[in-house]
């Protein structure tokens, strides 16, 4: 009745009734794996999930994606043959509030009301009932985790540190530089816990003793470095796998001549024209990758300033540059530090503010959150001229000798096999 194209292959020919099965040829465990993304925006969740999924698909597992943004997924998953379904999610998160903790983030998104959460958890359960996953890989997907409680589905939580809160109570204040009244945070955490347990009660799922248990009862696949994890001090015995390589492959084309090499990356910001105008005068050589920078900015290109139009091989970029200036990019920050190069970060939202704070604490760079011309140029000058930033970045890199681009995928595959063997 329905044409083959777009049909999830496992819906047509799947292992029987969702049980992990042994493949006849080599004893390899074959399972149904559901990769879930519920909160957040852009490609930062989709692209890593696809990188993790590809080897599973190649190994014969039946993988499906359930994602917040199926339109973006088309750009990432299109042609992969992996079926993709819409994630039940809150598409109208409340804005305009300064969030101080993970429970507050939940209350402004997935946990906005008990009725809505229950409605969405039921929709996740509907998907589980038909897709029968053996394994859930959740990237910023709290409702998916809640729906999986008490089922036979094994859970992995993945992503950077920000999206995987530690299993502690109370959960940490995120804005240590301007903290909220702890009583306010305690109330928020209790409210989020009560909401989850209210839903759990009505759907007959095991209750949570602590909110963090939602994540703590899953196996972590932490795609970051300890030094970039804002929750590092609250976690115990967790492994850091580093970040996944980006998809780019083009060789960086630096402006020729003398001068230090500065890589600039991210989103445009108000003082960007002035910053680029100043950098175009030299003495450094700056290579800019900002897809949203308009043509008027590109006119500033000259002997000291070049623009890249395609995604570059980040290994080549990080190894050839002296410093990076970035508005966002957890993966790019990690790549820079692992190459022993310092960074100047221009954070514009909480997640990046926390990464910038981590970088400053590690001594491997500076943060310029005010996004002012003088601040950005001043900090860039310091990072390039003061030896300590590069030294600290190199010391950090030395702690991860032996980690390579393949490490996260290799560790992930091993974790998947281990969890499936237990089922």
């Amino acid at each position, binding site marked *: *009745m*329905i*044409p083959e*194209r*777009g*049909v*999830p292959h496992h*819906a*047509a020919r799947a292992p029987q009734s969702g049980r992990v099965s042994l493949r006849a040829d080599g004893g390899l465990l074959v399972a149904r794996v559901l990769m879930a993304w519920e909160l957040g925006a852009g490609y930062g969740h989709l692209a890593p999930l696809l990188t993790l999924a590809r080897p599973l698909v190649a190994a014969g597992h039946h993988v499906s994606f359930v994602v917040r943004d*199926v*339109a*973006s*997924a*088309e*750009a990432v998953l*299109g042609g992969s043959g992996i*079926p*993709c*379904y*819409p*994630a*039940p*999610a809150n*598409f*109208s998160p409340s804005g305009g509030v300064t969030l101080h903790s993970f429970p507050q983030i939940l209350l402004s998104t997935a946990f906005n009301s008990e*009725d*809505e959460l*229950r*409605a*969405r958890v*039921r*929709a996740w359960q*509907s*998907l589980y*009932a*038909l*897709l029968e996953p053996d394994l859930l890989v959740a990237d910023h997907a709290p409702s998916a985790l809640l729906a999986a409680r008490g089922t036979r589905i094994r859970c992995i939580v993945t992503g950077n540190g920000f999206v995987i809160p530690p299993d502690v109570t109370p959960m940490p204040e995120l804005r240590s530089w301007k903290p909220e009244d702890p009583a306010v945070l305690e109330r928020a955490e209790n409210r989020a816990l009560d909401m989850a347990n209210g839903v759990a009660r009505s759907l007959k799922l095991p209750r949570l003793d602590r909110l963090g248990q939602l994540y703590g009862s899953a196996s972590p696949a932490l795609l970051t470095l300890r030094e970039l994890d804002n929750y590092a001090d609250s976690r115990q015995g967790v492994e850091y796998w580093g970040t996944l390589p980006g998809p780019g492959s083009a060789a960086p084309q630096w402006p020729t001549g003398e001068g230090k090499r500065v890589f600039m990356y991210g989103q445009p910001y108000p003082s960007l024209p002035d910053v680029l105008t100043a950098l175009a005068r030299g003495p450094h050589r700056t290579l800019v990758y900002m897809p949203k920078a308009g043509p008027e900015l590109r006119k500033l290109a000259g002997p000291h300033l070049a623009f890249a139009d395609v995604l570059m091989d980040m290994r080549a970029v990080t190894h050839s540059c002296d410093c990076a200036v970035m508005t966002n990019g957890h993966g790019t920050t990690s790549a820079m530090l692992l190459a022993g190069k310092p960074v100047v970060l221009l954070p514009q939202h909480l997640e990046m503010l926390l990464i910038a704070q981590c970088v400053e604490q590690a001594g491997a760079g500076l943060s310029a959150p005010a996004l002012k011309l003088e601040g950005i140029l001043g900090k860039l000058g310091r990072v390039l001229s003061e030896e300590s930033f590069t030294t600290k970045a190199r010391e950090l890199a030395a702690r991860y000798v032996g980690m390579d681009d393949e490490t996260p995928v290799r560790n992930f595959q091993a974790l998947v096999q281990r969890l499936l063997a237990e089922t």
Partner: protein
Amino acid sequence: MAKVVMCWELGGDLGHVARMKPLAEALHARGHRVSFIVREPLSAERLLDPQRFRWFQAPYQSEGIPNPIRPTLTMAAVMHNCGFNSSRALLGRLHAWRNLYALLKPDLLVFDHSPTAMLAAQGLKTPRIVLGTGFGIPPSTSPLPPFEPHKAEGIVEMEDGIRARVNEALAGLDVPPLTRLADLYRAQADVFFTFKELDHYPGREAADYWGPTRQDGGVVPAWPAVPGRRVFAYLKPFKTLEPLLETFKQAGHPMLIYLSKGAEAVRKKYADAPNLSFSDKPVELKRAATEAELVVCHSGHGTISAALLAGKPLLLLPLNMEQRMLSLRVAELGAGLAAPALAPEGMRQKFQRLMAEPAFTAAARGFAERYRDLRVEEIPERFAALAERLLASEAP
């Protein structure tokens, strides 16, 4: 036992799931399995029995697009603004709908205001029913008809552009191109849950009008204990609500006002007006309309139907295009007056005319008389029978 999937993509609030619920219950009672793919799971949670029905998240364009078409002159512009603006993103949503269909393996698809879901069903052999009021099922013309007949400039070119992107996306599904955008609405049956007189598109050729679906629920109307002629109002907050309430207060008649938001604050403000009573809970529509002499609303289809079936005239304060189109139909019937500008003086004068001139009530009573024998409670069974006919004709 057949598998039936009911889809809702566009619009808000509870109305779409509320419309499909009794139909799904009738199908379920006959042994069929019904699943819902809904824009807002909350609507399903509020209305559906989870023991009998499963629901899934519908893919839809949840954020504003960068290049919306304004003003929206036809349904094609609505489609553009709801995600037909980019063939790539549209293809992503088409794949998501297709994947849900493949997962649910429906024997019958039912669509309520779901153009992307219907587009995704192109090329499938699964029989389809499209249902709705007139608005959600535009007439099958090329270009799609303008919402307001005198505003049609550039609609041919606009639709050509949209159709080209739609066809690009369809190519990604290996589905032949549409020659007319309206063809995406093609189904084995079109079911209009409205009256010919209340079809948003007047002059539609042959259409199967079933009348409005049952409207259950709501609290018993609690009228202010003052003498006079009762007026029931079903309102949302809008910028000239205050002057309207002032008009109501001065008129002195007993008024029951259901305010979907902010009832508490308004109740305090009008504590000194014994003729005004505010409800923050939905009021039983049929009963309120029966007990009132005039109904005031934003021109929602359900409230208008309830008022006219009870033979009561209407003051209409439309807030959007869909409501504006419907308010014109009521005005043409002579059973009400529309004040689309929401100007205080205009609303006041029209309210006074409706209270003073018996012709409006006479026209509303004429409508009620025409549909005296309508049995809306039979709609679910009739629908289930239609569904089974289609299922039988498609059986291998």
